[in-house]
């Protein structure tokens, strides 16, 4: 026993863990996970994934793949059939054409695609603009590459949309790339074609590469999702990241993809080939089924999120929380400033007093402070109960 203790302290002094990894603080979400997990009867609005189980036809396709013995590696960039379907899908849904053979790489979730994209284009010391509030993985993933993340903050003032001015304020000659996500996690904000066109001009002017995380593209509630890659001059500098986790309720399958300019996708495939080899074949076969036959079921799920979005945003306003209208994803991002509490205090007291779990906005970047992320991917009954409890809580603190 004592020799173990000695050993670990020796390791500590030699600092076995790299400087980069050591310098990254633990995720702010962890604390709320632990709190929520330690209590019974918690209603959670803290979950970043669909409340649907993967549609049965998709599950069935994977079962059948296993039965037929599909248990092997696939081509590094993914099953040709899946890449063909992805290429067709991008063209039909978002009006962008990609060669399935050279411009599509199938990854282990969008998460891997983000990592591959950054590693493909970054040299140590480069600056990468990270648009916040954002999904928690961007800043750490940028830092793992040795690049310097530079935060671009969007605010409630612009409904958390990104503008040309935001970019101009932070761009330097060292800026190599920019990463953002619309529809956004955690704000639910989206960008119209016109708004994208405006930022496209600055992106072009400063010769930036864009990682456009469009994993929530299908979860758009008014009009069609617009891809940055479809805007003038953006095709050759945009890596579009998407996946099956959100639209098809397939988080556990770990399958996503990136599409983009040939050279970058090929570079990404090179890293993927050595570090991952390929995405799991049964998940890829399930993904084929999702794209071929899963669209009506996807639409049904989107409709159900839209109903719950409408309900929950109105309800937040009625209990006295200012909330912009999220046009995509499945998150509402109300402000808690009226209560005088920080987002951390709000979230912590809310779970202690009323057993409702939400995620404090600062977890998604300093600009998220004063807000809480509430996922409405949960049943209407649960949402109604959560609103009742939150109404009681807010009333006490107003």
């Amino acid at each position, binding site marked *: 026993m004592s020799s173990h203790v000695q050993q670990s302290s020796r390791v500590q002094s030699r600092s076995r863990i790299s400087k980069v990894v050591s310098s990254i603080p633990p995720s702010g979400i962890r604390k709320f996970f632990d709190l929520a997990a330690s209590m019974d009867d918690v209603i959670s609005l803290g979950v970043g994934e669909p409340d649907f189980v993967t549609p049965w036809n998709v599950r069935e396709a994977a079962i059948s793949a296993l039965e037929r013995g599909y248990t092997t590696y696939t081509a590094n960039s993914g099953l040709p059939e899946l890449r063909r379907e992805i290429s067709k899908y991008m063209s039909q849904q978002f009006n962008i054409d990609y060669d399935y053979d050279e411009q599509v790489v199938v990854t282990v979730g969008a998460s891997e695609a983000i990592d591959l994209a950054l590693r493909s284009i970054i040299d140590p010391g480069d600056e990468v603009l990270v648009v916040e509030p954002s999904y928690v993985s961007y800043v750490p993933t940028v830092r793992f590459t040795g690049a310097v993340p530079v935060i671009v903050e969007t605010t409630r003032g612009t409904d958390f949309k990104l503008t040309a001015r935001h970019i101009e304020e932070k761009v330097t000659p060292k800026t190599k790339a920019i990463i953002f996500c619309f529809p956004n996690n955690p704000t639910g904000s989206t960008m119209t074609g016109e708004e994208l066109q405006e930022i496209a001009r600055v992106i072009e002017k400063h010769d930036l590469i864009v990682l456009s995380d469009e994993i929530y593209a299908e979860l758009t509630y008014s009009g069609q999702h617009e891809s940055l890659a479809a805007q003038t001059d953006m095709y050759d500098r945009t890596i579009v990241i998407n996946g099956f986790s959100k639209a098809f309720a397939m988080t556990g399958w770990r399958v996503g993809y990136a599409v983009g300019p040939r050279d970058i996708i090929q570079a990404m495939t090179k890293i993927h080939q050595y570090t991952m080899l390929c995405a799991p074949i049964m998940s890829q076969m399930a993904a084929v089924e999702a794209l071929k036959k899963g669209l009506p079921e996807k639409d049904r799920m989107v409709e159900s999120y839209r109903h719950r979005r409408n309900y929950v945003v109105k309800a937040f306003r009625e209990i006295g929380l200012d909330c912009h209208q999220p046009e995509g994803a499945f998150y509402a991002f109300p402000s808690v400033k009226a209560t005088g509490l920080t987002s951390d205090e709000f979230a912590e007291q809310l779970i202690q007093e009323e057993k409702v779990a939400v995620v404090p906005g600062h977890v998604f970047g300093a600009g998220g402070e004063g807000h809480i992320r509430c996922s409405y991917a*949960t049943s209407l009954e649960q949402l109604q109960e959560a609103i009742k409890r939150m109404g009681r809580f807010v009333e006490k603190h107003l």
Partner: protein
Amino acid sequence: MKQVKELLHLLEENSHVSRKTIADMMGISEDDVNQLIQELEDKKVIVKYMALVNWEKVEENDHVTAVIDVKVTPKRDVGFDEVAERIYRFPEVKSVYLMSGAYDLSVTIEAPTMKEIAQFVSDKLSTLDSVISTTTHFMLKRYKHDGVVLTDKDDDRRMVVTP
């Protein structure tokens, strides 16, 4: 029309949800919802509101269900409608569908005991003039009814807080 369908889907999913919540979900006013529902009720598009009961969970449950395939000779001018009507008027008959294929009418019937169902078939159904033959299938277990799985509920297997 899109709005009507949207409303009907919401009610079909759960007619117990308050009118205000339905209005909020659809992004229209409560008055509009009330008016739409009134129209749909008047036109008998919405026929009835009821509870879906899982009788198997009720103690001393006295429900036996049978599905009966009925072959009939259609009558001139009235086709199958007349005999269908004669069958669906019995209160123990829960549903009557005209089918394509090996038989004509699919009749669902509920009674407290198998014996009563057997009696109904021999006394009431087989004796109808146009009925040629019947095949009775007793229902052993309901797994899914009207789109609702009755056996068990899928638990939420997600972790409580995720990014």
